[in-house]
């Protein structure tokens, strides 16, 4: 039976990851990628969800190669029918920080440098108290952690599940609009995507205000109707 959870995140630390690097400015867009959320929620390589991966791809604190193994990790979620949508901001503010790093050892042997490369830059981060919203679609019930950590600084964020839809209504061949951000690779193979706005970010650009045609989940509660695409699974570019 399909379960849909509508979740809220509130930041308790400032959140930083580089959506784009413009010269010395490293900018964080107020949108969380669904790949990142899967890791942050602890769905990857976790015996609790039966998503363990082969030992050569296992996910741990220290990774020797530092290369993301999205395909190896997320395919296991497909097998368990767990899907997380990207998160949009409900309210947010940004802060700009300037950073510089220097060698602060007491004794430094002076060596002539080849180039004068200053090591400073600015980061645009999402401020604490900013709020985000996303959905988790799963075949089995899920218990969420209260706190998760996100981004390059492992910033603390409070997770709350605000709505739980048990066995939502499924409709075939509908034309509908989804205001929430979606991962285009995960919907374009199962739906006809007609119109959208693109948000450019690695590793896969996201889309929002999406008009599409295909199967959808229809949920209504407290005079509010929510429509989400059905059959979303992680797809990867060949």
């Amino acid at each position, binding site marked *: 039976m399909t379960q849909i959870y509508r979740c809220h995140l509130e930041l308790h630390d400032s959140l930083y990851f580089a959506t784009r690097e*413009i010269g010395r*400015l490293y900018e964080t867009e107020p949108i969380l990628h669904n790949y990142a959320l899967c890791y942050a929620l602890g769905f990857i390589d976790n015996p609790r969800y039966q998503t363990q991966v082969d030992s050569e791809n296992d996910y741990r604190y220290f990774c020797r190669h530092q290369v993301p193994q999205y395909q190896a990790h997320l395919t296991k979620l497909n097998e368990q029918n767990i899907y997380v949508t990207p998160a949009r901001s409900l309210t947010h503010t940004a802060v700009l920080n300037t950073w510089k790093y220097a060698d602060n050892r007491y004794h430094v042997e002076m060596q002539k440098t080849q180039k004068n490369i200053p090591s400073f830059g600015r980061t645009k981060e999402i401020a604490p108290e900013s709020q985000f919203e996303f959905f988790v679609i799963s075949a089995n019930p899920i218990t969420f952690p209260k706190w998760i950590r996100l981004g390059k600084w492992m910033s603390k964020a409070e997770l709350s599940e605000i709505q739980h839809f048990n066995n939502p209504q499924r409709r075939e061949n509908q034309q509908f609009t989804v205001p929430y951000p979606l991962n285009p690779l995960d919907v*374009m193979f199962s739906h006809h995507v007609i119109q959208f706005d*693109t948000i450019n970010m690695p590793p896969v650009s996201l889309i929002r205000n999406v*008009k599409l045609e295909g199967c959808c989940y229809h949920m209504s509660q407290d005079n509010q109707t929510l429509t989400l695409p059905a059959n979303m699974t992680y797809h990867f570019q060949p």
Partner: protein
Amino acid sequence: MPYSLVFNFVPETLIPPDYATGRHLNALFITAVNAVDPELATSLHEQKITKAFTISPLQKIPPSRRDSPPRIPEILQAQHQRPIAPQTPCWWRVSLLDDQLFGRLSQLWLNLNPRQPWHLGAANLHITSILGTPQSTQPWANACSYEDLYETASDSNRRLRFQLATPVAFRQQKYDSALPTPDSLFRSLHNSWKKYSGIELTGFATENIFPSYFNLQTEILDFDFRKKGKASKFIGAVGRIDFRILGDVDSATIKALNTLSNYALYCGIGRKTTMGMGMALAIESRRS
């Protein structure tokens, strides 16, 4: 389905004014298309008249306060006298008229993290977003199928208002005319509609259209083609012009003219719409 797509981007280094012209933006678009579909890029490049796309000049997003979003000016900046500073948020519009184009280029919209960045002059462009749905703060982003444009057009509204945002000029025999007459304006729209929509506008006629209000001025654009014997200066009209449909006109004609005025957002009006000229918006009439 015609699309009007707004590309928001930030340049990493300074963009010289010479590179902010329609000619370079046109080249940038063709280069981008070439990256995903070389065959399509060649066919777009070789189209001579009524091309299947239009391109806007490069626009800076004006600085704004946090509580009020930036407002897009009614008349856009057709050319720049000064270089555009690094890290200035900018936008640029591309409209696609052919039904198939958007789908064929979907790889381009979704793979915006290319290994080779987009360039204007020496500047690397970082595309932050592409808008393709109606926005409250950006009147130039939209998409609507040809059937919907026709079905939703009014058959009773007799006042057609246009905002000419970049210079509009028309070819008349050997020379160019910058004055938007009802005939030249609606014929330009109708030619594009006939080529790309596949829907016949029965009753299209321009005899009963008369200008009722205009606040126009001329603007000179220099494309700097650097080719001998090729005119590089274009004179066009920018501003507001309203037309009224007068006399005994049947509803099919009124519907055809309303359809065409709504279509102006996508196809532009007159000459050099692939170089940034002829961007026009139909302003909704209060009394329809």
